[in-house]
């Protein structure tokens, strides 16, 4: 197999890698905010339960969570395993990343001085307006570097989808490596991930720059 065929074949899987990546971000970024708000709830029970789940999601390997989401329903309730593996993969990724994002959001929200809330209250902003207009934009700027870190990790984590037999780029790479008894597909995979993250880095850098209009 020529290097070009190899790259083309793995490139096919890259679409699925991208699907995991973008769908995970699409769901986990807002879900993380919901989790963060639950975590900061004044209701101690809600806060404690949320904290418990965050700890489980951050304290166990993503690989196990993938297995649990994909095969758990079958073993526990006899529900058929999904034929489209993208569904359980994205569910597991989105939940896992939401837990990480939630803690980042929480840190960001708690870092905003109370004076901002007080000023907004006196100026007649509703609680929702205060959050959306005053707090959130400042939080986004503060947490951008941490979010970038997670996004870069996500690119690499997509390779874990192979544990539930989702045919993304790295799984195909492993298949080729095996059938060709060659290390080259791993090199190709490394280059793919590197380029992917190079793009992520550029995009996030641009976003951060955009937010640099104030300090």
């Amino acid at each position: 197999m020529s290097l070009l065929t190899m790259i083309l074949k793995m490139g096919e899987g890259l679409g699925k890698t991208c699907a995991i990546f973008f769908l995970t971000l699409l769901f986990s970024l807002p879900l993380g905010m919901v989790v963060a708000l639950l975590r900061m709830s004044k209701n101690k029970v809600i806060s404690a339960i949320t904290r418990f789940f965050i700890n489980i999601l951050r304290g166990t390997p993503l690989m196990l969570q993938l297995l649990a989401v994909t095969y758990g329903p079958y073993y526990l309730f006899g529900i058929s395993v999904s034929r489209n593996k993208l569904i359980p993969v994205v569910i597991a990724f989105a939940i896992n990343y939401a837990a990480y994002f939630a803690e980042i959001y929480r840190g960001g929200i708690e870092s905003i001085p109370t004076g901002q809330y007080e000023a907004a209250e006196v100026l007649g902003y509703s609680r929702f307006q205060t959050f959306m207009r005053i707090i959130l934009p400042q939080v986004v700027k503060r947490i951008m570097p941490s979010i970038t870190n997670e996004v870069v990790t996500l690119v690499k984590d997509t390779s874990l989808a192979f544990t539930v037999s989702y045919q993304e780029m790295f799984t195909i790479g492993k298949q080729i490596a095996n059938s060709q008894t060659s290390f080259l597909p791993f090199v190709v995979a490394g280059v793919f991930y590197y380029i992917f993250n190079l793009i992520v880095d550029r995009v996030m850098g641009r976003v951060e720059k955009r937010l640099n209009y104030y300090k």
Partner: protein
Amino acid sequence: MKKILVLFMALVMLTALTGCSSGKDSGSKSADKKKFIMGIDPEYPPFSYLGDDGKYTGFDVEVCQAACDYLGWDLEIFAVNWDEKLIQLDSNECDCVWSGMTILDSMKEAGYIISKPYYDNTQVLVVKDDSGFNSSADLAGKLVAVQLGTSGEALLNGDLADLAATFGDVITADSFLKCFTELAGNAVDAVFVDMPVAADYVAKNAGYRIIDEQLGAEQYGIAFRSRDEELAKQIEDAVAALVENGTYAKIAEKEDYSEIVNNLIFLND
């Protein structure tokens, strides 16, 4: 683009370096007993698997242990990552791969020393009892699971590519357990798997059957590094001696190996 090139070069050099730095242990003559490291897939019963007592066992493991006893060597078992087994062999993590391994032409072409085949294997399709599939043709357009890095997968990409093309899709899972879980959970319609593994699974789990159609006959052997010619010969001679003195047959007669005993080449010659 330049950065990528540099990275690529670095990776290539790294690969080359690991290749160069090998070759220290196998030939060393020490006063101690020689240590022989056997590379196995720990999830491939009955050839090699983690026994109930938490130790690796299986037909291949027992034969290797007997061979090492015969040679007066210490046996160490190393569980390889099956789809990277040859890379691990190259990097001296083990001295051989001996674990129901299908002999592929590509291995010989890559320079590995492959022992005489000791087992004749056949691939079959496992389906659910009530599925109504009776031949590989019935599975046209259906989903079939195969374990990554197994001979079954290699066959579907090679000699049986035409058959694979008739399937709806081929799903590669990284263990047999997952292949069969996919089947149990109705995520796939059949599992393409080695005959003995299929027989073992069907015997232990109700509700499954093997489609009576032998696909892609193949043989098992032991892989050694290209420079370990002497080592390969020592092991092969030792196994031959075990066959001669009956130890081999004694192992094969065990209840655990009833599924494979008929396919063992040395006992049927």
